[in-house]
């Protein structure tokens, strides 16, 4: 899954460790999320979205959004 986590973190000047502490996860988790090696659970995705004050779909993209738009 593609996400904008790295950009959002950079905008705030946070390190991976800062974000990990804010979310209560390991720094390795943040790295795996940013590199797309790991998809978060729904509760973690909500925590991330709330932390950045954005909607989940503004941060995470499963690549199927264009299909939804085409159907509409």
């Amino acid at each position, binding site marked *: 899954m593609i996400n904008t986590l790295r950009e959002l973190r950079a905008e705030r000047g946070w390190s991976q460790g800062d974000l990990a502490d804010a979310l*209560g*996860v*390991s720094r390795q988790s943040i790295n795996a999320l940013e590199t797309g090696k790991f998809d978060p659970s729904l509760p973690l995705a909500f925590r991330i979205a709330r932390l950045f004050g954005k909607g989940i779909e503004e941060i995470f993209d499963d690549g199927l959004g264009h299909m939804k738009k085409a159907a509409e």
Partner: protein
Amino acid sequence: MAQLTFREANKRYRRAFIPAMVVYTVAVFGGSFLLKQFETPPTWLSAIVALIMAAPIGVVLWLMWRLTRETDEFTRQQQMSAMAAGGLMTAFFSVVWGFLELYNVVPALWTFLVGPFFFLSYGLVYCFGRRSLVGPGFEK
């Protein structure tokens, strides 16, 4: 109980793991020393010493289980994958060795070695193979 953070879960694990290992070390050396005092130790005493030696390992296994429940989801997935891989490798090794033993190709191994084999394979997978075990799920 409230959800623990990754750091809190690790701290809770270490706080219980270290005393368990101290008890294990004391039990192994103390138990061996105690049994050496007898020319032929009574079976009941040997059984008690063996169970006391094994108890801290049971505690450590439980702590590992608790850590996987309390840690963050990415670490949990890595831990569980490594544990499963270690368990499967141990099961496969036991079956292969068991058949070889059945046909007198290899000598009988102590059942005791199954535990260290599991911990070794689990540890090696966790150190060197966990990245390949945890993926983003089903790819399109």
